[in-house]
């Protein structure tokens, strides 16, 4: 399989996938960072996303659940920030991106799920102050290439 060298190619490949496949791929991205989020609603959403035959209203309810999870987890203005919670917030956003209908957001749902998942990773790195620059990115390339070859 052609090896993905940078985000531009990564995004091109993701956007080229048709919506159902983008959704299941996005689910994999979110699964990779799921342990960062302790909101079980999000894991339920990811299961729905991962199911290739999920029905439209299943997806709609999942989207709504994800949105509620986002709102419950975003940082309150002025409150002491906790990057671990923020990581959970971004996982929830990744899950929401995964199940959101195509076209609602510029760019494909897979790309947005990937970005939010990567942001969740960044939040975790801020919390633990370790430098894993690019590690999350490379892992996502591997997930994509495995997905394409499977």
């Amino acid at each position, binding site marked *: 399989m052609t090896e993905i060298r940078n985000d531009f190619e990564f995004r091109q490949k993701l956007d080229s996938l048709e919506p159902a496949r983008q959704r299941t791929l996005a689910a994999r991205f979110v699964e990779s960072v799921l342990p960062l989020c302790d909101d079980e609603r999000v894991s339920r959403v990811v299961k729905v996303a991962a199911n290739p035959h999920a029905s439209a209203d299943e997806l709609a309810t999942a989207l709504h659940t994800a949105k509620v999870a986002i709102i419950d987890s975003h940082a309150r203005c002025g409150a002491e920030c906790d990057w671990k919670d923020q990581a959970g917030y971004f996982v929830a956003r990744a899950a929401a991106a995964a199940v959101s209908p195509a076209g609602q957001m510029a760019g494909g749902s897979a790309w947005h799920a990937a970005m939010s998942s990567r942001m969740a990773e*960044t939040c975790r790195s801020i919390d633990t102050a370790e430098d894993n620059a690019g590690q999350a990115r490379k892992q996502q390339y591997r997930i994509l290439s495995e997905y394409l070859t499977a």
Partner: protein
Amino acid sequence: MSGPTLARGLNAFKEQIDAPTASFFSSCVHCGMCAEACLFFTETRDPKYTPIYKLEPLRKVWWQEYTFWGKLASTVGLSKPVTDAELTEWETLVYDSCTMCGRCTMVCPVGNDITYMIRKMREGMAASGHAPPGLIGATQRAVTIGSPMGVKYPALEAQIRHTEEEIGFSIPVDVVGADYLCTLSSMEIMNFPEYIGAIARIFHETGVSWTISSEAFEATNSGIQIGVSEIAAVLVERIVKAAEKLKVKAVISPECGHAYMAIRWEGPNLIGRPYSFKVVHILEVLDELRKAGKLRTTGKESRRLTYHDPCQISRRGGVYEQPRNLLKMVAENFVEMPDTGIMNWCCGAGGGVSANERAEVLKMKAFKRKKAQLDAVAPDALVTACANCRIQLEEGLEENHMDIPVISLTETIAEHLAGETHPEARPS
């Protein structure tokens, strides 16, 4: 440090009262019209939320100190001084039920600027220990850590690196001689980091020379929300020092309401000297680029959009035409809410109310006013330009089961940016 005392509070009242305050208190005829302009009253119908009533202790000090009969009455003991119990009772009125949105000021028939006085009264309230705990925590973090939510630069640095990967080119940090110093609000860094990507792509596309300062990235200023000018001055001084060190021509205030009020309008008066640089809101920068023909966008949002004017940017900041100009570029179905522009209704969370957990229930009740406004136009999406408004709007819409996404104007512009240059291939 003697800690907060009633005496320091009353002393602050005496310091703050000036000619406008005296004129306002002399003019109030108790007509009650400011109540109907205040969302905390309209949605609770509780008369104690009448804006002018929130100033009663300050009015009493004015009467006793700066009028003939008042001075006489208080000297002979006929009129009792303000007590600590009174200030405790007024704490929830001056902080929890007031976002300093300025709508009462626009409505008062005799022209009283009630918001101007609330800002002054908070100086006395804070100095006498009557500021809400949430806001005190945020202010302490802002001074000690550099951001009311405790965001340190390494966190921003990680967000920046993440964004650089995403957009494919680098974000200038601590670049001396750049034209613009861009500041961010903690809310954006934490909840809406895409904002950083958005401005990076726009500036990259329009060739704007800008930078972020690692020493003064925080735009918010809880000093003006809590009402302690000295602390507000410390926070502004940081940005001024960074701007002067980086020799920038202008400082950009981000999509945040009170940050603009703090740095643009109160800043120079807080630090006691005019700036050697300009201060502009991000929307002003985008509109300048639009006028200069540099900012070109493609495609139009087909969704029915409406715009929520953040109070401190629009009514109290003067930036209300720019968002309309920008929205016309990217929205074909843009509708105005009733009472829009400088008469817009507040989202209910500004002026420190969102940082004050005690005000949570009241804040949500106040949102009903915004709900009524939105129901009148039933938009598909709600555009605004303040991160704190976005959070409150999202929470309010969710609680009222209204499925309306809340999106940032700058990010919307970025999404429609024309001629996206190919991000240079980055070595894998």
